[in-house]
């Protein structure tokens, strides 16, 4: 039992962490917007936490705050993500469908190139030796777990509130929603920024979790992986991202005994999941899938 925990503690928390990233995509999707910008904000949030945790100039602040430095990092990442999210959201959300998806991927790429070129981010080596709040990886569930519960509760309330219904109305028919007097642009930006903020805070929590932070955390591959969580899990349910992340993050580990061919089988499972669960795992579980 202890061994099982030691072996899979990191993986378990990684599933929750990736599920949060998936959920950050779910917010704009509630309003029908396919945005992959989250990964850029995830990278940004991680850098905020990594710099605040290691930069020599901030040592007095760390000494003064003690453990409270971590919530302060989350807040800093949150504030930055919201500000940048609003600035990016207004122009970007004029784009539709796949154009928005690809424009947000472009944003992710630009964030990566910028991070490579800034001295504060440590270039290709990145930032390392990030201070640790916990010894064991499993204990990081105290960071990610409450955030996940909070996010799920927020979505649950949104789904039953006016704002949430407005999101759904845009998803179902944007023109009709506009005709009914919904401030479509504002609502889209609202959904988008919520996703960005969640990704930013997740990033800030992830920097100590991974011990290090670098440009390779916010890549195209990572963005597409998050999209896969949502779609495989079920893009119309808040449980989708969680189920998708659980399947796709643990799959390479489950397949580990297959050695070098494990990634081939990983691809096979991805295709089969798409074909046999077109409404995602959540759709399959809710029995609405035909």
């Amino acid at each position, binding site marked *: 039992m202890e061994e099982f925990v030691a072996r899979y503690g990191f993986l378990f928390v990684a599933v929750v962490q990736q599920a949060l990233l998936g959920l950050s995509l779910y917010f704009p999707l509630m309003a029908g917007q396919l945005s992959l910008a989250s990964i850029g904000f995830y990278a940004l949030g991680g850098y905020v936490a990594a710099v605040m945790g290691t930069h020599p100039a901030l040592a007095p602040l760390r000494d003064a705050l003690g453990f409270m430095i971590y919530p302060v990092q989350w807040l800093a990442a949150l504030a930055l993500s919201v500000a940048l999210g609003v600035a990016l959201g207004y122009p970007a959300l004029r784009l539709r469908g796949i154009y928005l998806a*690809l424009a947000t991927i472009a944003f992710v790429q630009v964030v990566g190139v910028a991070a490579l070129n800034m001295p504060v981010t440590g270039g290709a080596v990145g930032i390392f030796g990030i201070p640790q709040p916990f010894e064991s990886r499993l204990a990081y569930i105290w960071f990610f777990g409450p955030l996940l519960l909070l996010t799920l509760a927020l979505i649950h309330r949104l789904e039953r509130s006016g704002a949430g219904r407005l999101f759904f109305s845009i998803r179902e028919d944007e023109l009709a929603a506009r005709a009914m007097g919904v401030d479509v642009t504002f609502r889209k930006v609202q959904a988008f920024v919520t996703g960005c903020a969640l990704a930013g805070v997740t990033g800030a929590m992830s920097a100590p979790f991974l011990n290090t932070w670098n440009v390779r955390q916010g890549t195209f591959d990572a963005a597409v992986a998050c999209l896969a969580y949502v779609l495989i899990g079920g893009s119309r349910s808040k449980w989708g991202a969680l189920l998708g992340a659980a399947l796709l993050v643990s799959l390479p580990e489950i397949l580990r005994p297959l050695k070098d061919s494990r990634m081939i089988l990983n691809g096979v499972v991805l295709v089969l999941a798409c074909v046999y669960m077109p409404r995602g795992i959540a759709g399959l579980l809710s029995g609405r899938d035909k």
Partner: protein
Amino acid sequence: MSLAWFLQNLLNGLSIGSVYAVFALGYTLVFSILGIINFAHGAVFTLGAYLTYVLAVGQFGLNGLLAGVALPFKLPFVPALLLGAALSGLAGMAVERLAFRPLRRRGADALLALVSSLGVALILVNLIQYLFGAEIYSFPPDVFGSLPPAMIFKVGGKMVAVRTVQVILFGVSLVMLLALVWFIHYTVKGKALRATAENPDTAALLGIGVDTFILGTFFISGVLGGLSGTLIGVSFGLAGPYFGVAYGLKALAVIVLGGLGSIPGAVVGGLVIGLAEAFLPPDMSSYKEAVAYVLLFAVLLVRPQGLLGAHVEQKV
């Protein structure tokens, strides 16, 4: 800045831009028919290069499952290129059958095809690595015969240099492009293809077998991918099973910049990005990888449908 400097960058930009364009055409063709991006296109590009290599050199490397295996034959370069491209076309069809058709049949969310094509890409790339190993494969230096490696001429007293490979890339890309335009505009099959792209339901009513044409489109797309993969592979070597990924991403920027589904758009987009990268000031080389994406973002802000894209009210 001098005329020589201008000419040099123009040539550099046109050459790499034309490769971006041809690779992007494979994406754009599929998008024009299905309205979806085929994420496995980059893997087919890579596969094409590996297939041509094995056909032309007749020998596998030292690390994969097929380490040391030799084919009983060796083809001259041009037949190997064509056969490799044809096989890539078949791989393109396999992608359609595996990743797209089952989803279409089930009326699944169109976005899901992004993920299933990604799955196929994962299979292809890792299969290549499993069989060929991750090592670098390089075509023998004499594949282009006895052509000189570069041409150097003087403009206004300054040197302008063009690598022969750059000229070949540009020339072959141009020929492929013209062949594609001719096929689509002047053959019956090409016209049917356009009709399918325009409106699949009407096309079906007119007796056009939609599934067959989709399959045909994936074949052409695969051939284009395989050809451009081989061209890049011959010029720069095959730096492992992931060497197509960087091009794949850039080609995505190209088609969006030019306008999704637009063939002239892919060409214009490719050339614009190639030229913009070439004309980047020398002390800004660290931002070269961002050029395509900044440009894409800027253009979309002004023209949300891309440079040459048709304006369509589109739903997600």
